[in-house]
C-alpha cells in the first residue's frame, strides 16, 4: 500500500474501545464516522501509564 499522506483517503478501520463515559467497551469505525459526518482525531501514544 502507498504510504498515507495528508490529502489522501484513509482506509476504513474498526477498533475495539474502552468508553470511559459509560464505563463500557465499544467500537470505533471510520466508516461509521463518515456516515455520521463527523471528524475524527486519532491520538497515538506508546503505552498506557505513560504521559500523553
Amino acid at each position, binding site marked *: *500500500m502507498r*504510504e*498515507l*499522506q*495528508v*490529502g*489522501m*483517503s*484513509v*482506509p*476504513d*478501520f474498526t*477498533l*475495539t*474501545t*474502552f*468508553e*470511559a*463515559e459509560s*464505563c463500557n*467497551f*465499544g467500537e*470505533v469505525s*471510520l466508516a461509521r*464516522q*463518515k456516515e*455520521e*459526518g*463527523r*471528524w*475524527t*482525531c*486519532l*491520538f*497515538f*501514544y*506508546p*503505552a*498506557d*501509564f505513560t*504521559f*500523553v
Partner: protein
Amino acid sequence: MGCDIVTVSTDTQFMHLAWQREEKDLADVRYSMAADTTGALAKTFGVYLDDAGLALRGTFLINPEGTLMHAEVDFLNMGRNIDELMRKFKANLYLAKKTDEGCPSKWKAEGDQTLAPSPEMVGRVHEALRK
C-alpha cells in the same frame, strides 16, 4: 466541535480501563480509548515502532469524507499541548467551510484574518495581511 477524539495505543481495552480508573488525571475522560493490539492502525499511519511494538506520538485529523487533513508525529518523550492542537483543528474545520481561503500562520480563531489567494496578492502578502 463536531470532532471525536480517539486515543490509540497497542494496549488492550482492558488496560485502558485499568489506566483510566487508576490515573487521577484521566478521571474526566470523555473520549474513546482504542485498542490497536496488532499495531495495524499505527502501521497504516507510519507511527509503529517494529522493535518496541509501540506507537510514536502521532496526531491525525480525518475529515467526514475520510480524508487525512493533518498529520503530526512527536517522539516518545515529547508531550503534546492541547492549545497547539486546537489551533490546527479549528483552522481545519474553518477551511472545510471556506475552501477558497487560506489560514495564515498567525490565525487563531474564526474572525481572524484569512487570505484568499489571487494574482494581485502574488508578492504582496505583507500588504494583504495588514489591510
